């Protein structure tokens, strides 16, 4: 008990500066500490026990202890006198501060112990109490703050901090309790009530701050040193919370008021956001935000948006609804920035999303997706995409896209009346999907695949015809006479068509028709651009490999070779000596196999042409012995010079037309039978020829040989048939190939392997047919004991 008094005496002696030194002295103290350490370590060997004892704790302890040790230097001095001579450590430390005549400082102990005035604690508290009361009453207090501060200091120093704390607490509690009590039954108007609560809270905060200002020393010493004691500020909050809990009406009314205000704001009214902000900060400060406010708030939100979602989904159309949802989500986000606690943002947004979006995903898609797609509303689709992304509903959107493409595409593919426009419609459709994908679906990979898959599905909905039409579309584009399309445009179209081509499963059908048309373009000289033709071939080559284009390339080679042959024929002696005059002829020599097969057609040619053909044949065979030349008269075309009454004309006509027209050199009138006998052209073909000559819009005109460019029904069916025939061979070959290696194989496995090997679409029933045919032809047999198994018959 003697030591504390001694201490207090010394400290009181220095108090004149200590009110500031408590903080101001810290930095020098720290310096002293580090000096002490260095001094200690350097002097370690000579250090005596005392020195060590004093300084080791000081290095390890925190500032408070250092503060103590500084007072100890003063405090210890008398003790030092008592005990041993001053240790070297102390000496060295003194040297760090301005030199002092250390030895000369003598402090004598006062004989009588200083005592406290009799009613020291009571009096001091009375001073403080009146000040606190005044603060609570918002009245000025006579006592100035300096003195009050001093009073707290004094009480603390005399170990009366605990008492003081309890007294302050009591005082605060009384006040807070009465304040909250006063709110009970206050104004029924929620906003007014909320303002009252806010006022009361703000006041209390101010007041608690002032009280803490006065009792700062209490906070710093007693509160810090005593476990389980709240700081004055926390004590205030705690008391508020406690008494708020004791008057549930106030809390409830406050929460309801807040919820009501937010709802009003959602309904479009403007509300006092600052009020909301302050009150919610209060909840946060009191630590009851999550429990007392956030939970009911989220419930309320959920209810509100559930109702709104239902109502709006019925009332408005999808694009408006989506806009509304977007706006709502934005508003809720703002709400979090303006007055809600940041932690509420996630659950709040999630709640709104769930009620406004998640629950209505399928309804939104059912009601509006098709409309948005049909209307190319990229903005709205983009909004839909980004909103759905938020609630992980992209899968639903993707599926909707897939079924949309399938449904919309079906109309394009399946309607036979629209066959003429199928390819251009498909191209348009694809282009629009691509735009939407880019602009609305942020180039989502999965969506891209969906578009591809759906397109592949729909293009193969109908067998063969799309492939045929794609080939024909290309023919139109590559044919001469497409004025106004530049090379680049053409190139672009080819690329786009190639995308469609990629989806086609029966590429052999495409090839057959493409080849047929290409042959006509090449033979009749109707190709728009050989460069474009070659570019298309090389595209097909990269797409399907050289096997696919071998024959097509062979056709080009034939055409080029034919040019050379014609050149050298003209130079040859045969040509110069024997050829009939008045006609010129050029010949295309075509390699069988590269070109489509043409049915041989009989025609009796004019004598001159026969002579010409023979001379050319002689020439050709002399150059390439061992080859066989067959004339395909149905493919020939001629330019005739004719003299009409109105003047000379040149007629571009087919060879058959020529043959017919030539007859009229020698006759005015001929019957069908006459012509038939003279030309020996087959009946049907002759009719066609005559029709083109006599029934065209303008008879016997420049463009008459368009008849050759046109596809006949027979040509079309024979091309298709050839493809099917070819497929049958391929199936047979595949079955035999598989069975040859496997010898014995079950039906199911055979079918599976066939599907893997065959590159065109085929139905299982067709495969069965081929298997049965091979059984019939004794390539295979059904196993005697198990009809599900086939044996290969060598």
């Amino acid at each position, binding site marked *: 008990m003697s030591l504390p008094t001694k201490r207090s005496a010394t400290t009181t002696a220095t108090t004149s500066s200590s009110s500031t030194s408590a903080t101001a002295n810290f930095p020098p103290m720290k310096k002293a500490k580090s000096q002490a350490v260095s001094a200690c370590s350097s002097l370690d060997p000579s250090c005596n026990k005392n020195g060590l004892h004093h300084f080791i704790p000081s290095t390890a302890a925190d500032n408070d202890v250092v503060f103590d040790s500084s007072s100890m230097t003063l405090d210890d001095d008398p003790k030092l006198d008592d005990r041993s001579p001053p240790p070297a450590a102390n000496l060295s430390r003194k040297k760090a501060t301005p030199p002092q005549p250390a030895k000369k400082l003598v402090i004598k102990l006062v004989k009588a112990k200083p005592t406290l005035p009799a009613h020291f604690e009571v009096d001091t508290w009375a001073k403080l109490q009146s000040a606190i009361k005044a603060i609570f009453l918002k009245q000025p207090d006579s006592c100035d703050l300096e003195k009050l501060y001093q009073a707290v200091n004094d009480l603390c120093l005399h170990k009366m901090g605990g008492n003081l704390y309890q007294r302050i607490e009591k005082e605060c509690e009384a006040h807070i309790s009465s304040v909250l009590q006063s709110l009970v039954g206050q104004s029924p108007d929620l906003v007014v009530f909320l303002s009252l609560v806010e006022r009361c809270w703000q006041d209390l905060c101010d007041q608690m701050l002032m009280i803490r200002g006065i009792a700062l020393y209490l906070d710093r010493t007693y509160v810090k040193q005593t476990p389980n004691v709240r700081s004055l500020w926390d004590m205030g909050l705690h008391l508020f919370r406690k008494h708020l809990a004791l008057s549930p009406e106030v809390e409830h009314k406050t929460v309801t008021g807040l919820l009501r205000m937010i709802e009003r704001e959602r309904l479009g009214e403007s509300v006092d956001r600052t009020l909301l902000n302050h009150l919610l900060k209060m909840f946060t400060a009191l630590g009851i935000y999550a429990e007392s406010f956030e939970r009911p708030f989220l419930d309320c939100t959920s209810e509100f948006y559930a109702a709104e979602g239902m109502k709006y989904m019925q009332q408005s159309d999808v694009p408006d609804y989506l806009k509304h949802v977007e706006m709502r989500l934005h508003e809720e986000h703002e709400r979090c920035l303006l007055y809600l606690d940041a932690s509420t943002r996630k659950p709040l947004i999630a709640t709104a999303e769930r009620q406004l979006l998640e629950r209505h995903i399928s309804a939104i898609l059912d009601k509006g997706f098709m409309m948005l797609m049909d209307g190319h509303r990229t903005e709205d689709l983009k909004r839909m995409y980004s909103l759905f992304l938020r609630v992980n509903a992209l899968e639903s959107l993707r599926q909707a896209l897939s079924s949309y493409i399938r449904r919309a595409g079906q109309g394009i593919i399946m309607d036979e009346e629209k066959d003429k426009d199928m390819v251009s419609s498909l191209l348009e459709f694809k282009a629009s999907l691509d735009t939407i994908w880019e602009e609305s679906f942020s180039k989502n990979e999965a969506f891209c695949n969906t578009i591809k898959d759906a397109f592949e599905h729909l293009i193969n909905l109908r067998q063969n015809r799309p492939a045929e039409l794609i080939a024909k579309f290309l023919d139109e584009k590559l044919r001469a006479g497409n004025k106004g399309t530049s090379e680049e445009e053409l190139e672009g179209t080819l690329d786009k068509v190639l995308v469609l081509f990629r989806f086609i499963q029966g590429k052999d059908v495409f090839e057959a028709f493409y080849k047929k048309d290409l042959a006509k373009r090449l033979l009749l000289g109707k190709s728009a651009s050989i460069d474009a033709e070659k570019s298309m071939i090389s595209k097909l080559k990269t797409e399907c490999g050289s096997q696919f284009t071998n024959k097509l390339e062979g056709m080009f080679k034939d055409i080029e070779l034919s040019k050379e042959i014609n050149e050298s024929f003209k130079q040859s002696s045969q040509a110069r000596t024997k050829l009939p005059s008045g006609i010129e002829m050029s010949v295309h020599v075509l390699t069988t196999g590269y070109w489509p097969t043409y049915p041989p057609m009989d025609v009796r040619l004019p004598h001159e042409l026969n002579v010409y053909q023979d001379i050319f044949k002689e020439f050709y065979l002399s150059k390439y012995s061992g080859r066989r030349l067959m004339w395909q008269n149905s493919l020939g075309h001629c330019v005739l010079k004719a003299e009409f009454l109105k003047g000379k004309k040149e007629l571009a006509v087919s060879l058959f037309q020529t043959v017919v027209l030539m007859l009229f050199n020698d006759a005015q009138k001929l019957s069908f039978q006459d012509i038939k006998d003279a030309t020996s052209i087959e009946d049907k073909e002759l009719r066609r020829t005559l029709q083109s000559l006599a029934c065209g819009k303008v008879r016997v005109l420049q463009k008459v040989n368009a008849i050759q460019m046109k596809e006949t029904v027979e040509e079309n069916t024979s091309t298709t048939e050839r493809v099917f025939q070819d497929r049958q061979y391929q199936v047979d070959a595949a079955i035999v190939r598989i069975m040859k290696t496997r010898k014995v194989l079950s*039906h199911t496995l055979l079918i599976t392997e066939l599907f893997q090997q065959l590159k065109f679409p085929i139905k*299982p029933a067709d495969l*069965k*047919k081929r298997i*049965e045919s091979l059984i019939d032809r004794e390539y295979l047999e*059904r196993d005697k004991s198990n009809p599900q198994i*086939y044996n290969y018959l060598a």
Partner: protein
Amino acid sequence: MRRSAARKSGQSNSIAPITSSAADLFRSASSKASSKEMERIDNLFYSYANISSGLIDPEGIENLCSDMEVDHTDVRILMLAWKMKAEKQGYFTLEEWRRGLKALRADTVNKLKKALPELEKEVKRPSNFVDFYAYSFRYCLTEEKQKSIDIESICQLLDLVLGSHFRAQVDYFIEYLKIQNDYKVINMDQWMGFYHFCTEISFSDLSNYDPELAWPLILDNFVEWMQEKRT
């Protein structure tokens, strides 16, 4: 008329060949009996055979049938042919005749007639029936390199061989065969397929029919037709 006369004479002369067989004294009694039986079988053969061809021809078969009091389109005649392993429809060779009648232990028309019910039982044993069923198809292939039979004949044949076993299936199938246009003839594979169909597929719900399996396509179509018909 000429033939029936020959037959009668054959019958009356049936004891005549005894002398030749009696000549061999070393033969055992059983072999004697069997050779006698053989003789009787042969004689029976010649009583129906056409002299110039040395075969029992369709006319001969018809006579045989009337002697046995069996209709010549009766399935039992087909069974008899099966027993003889007769190769050509409407004809029995001596070899075939011997094979069949010996197995049936019949050397007279009467015995043959009495053997028929036993033969019918034998044929209906499942192990024999598949063979008989396949045989009946082959038996109808009359031309060189012929592999299939026209729908009309197939319908009759089905009715004959399978009608008693699988009445409902046969009726429906025949109905289908007559209205469809995809097939003009039926081959062995399809023929056998239908037998398996009858024995394996529950009729008429067809619940265990799977077109993914190796059933001939004609049966896939038949089942599809049945199902459409039902709805």
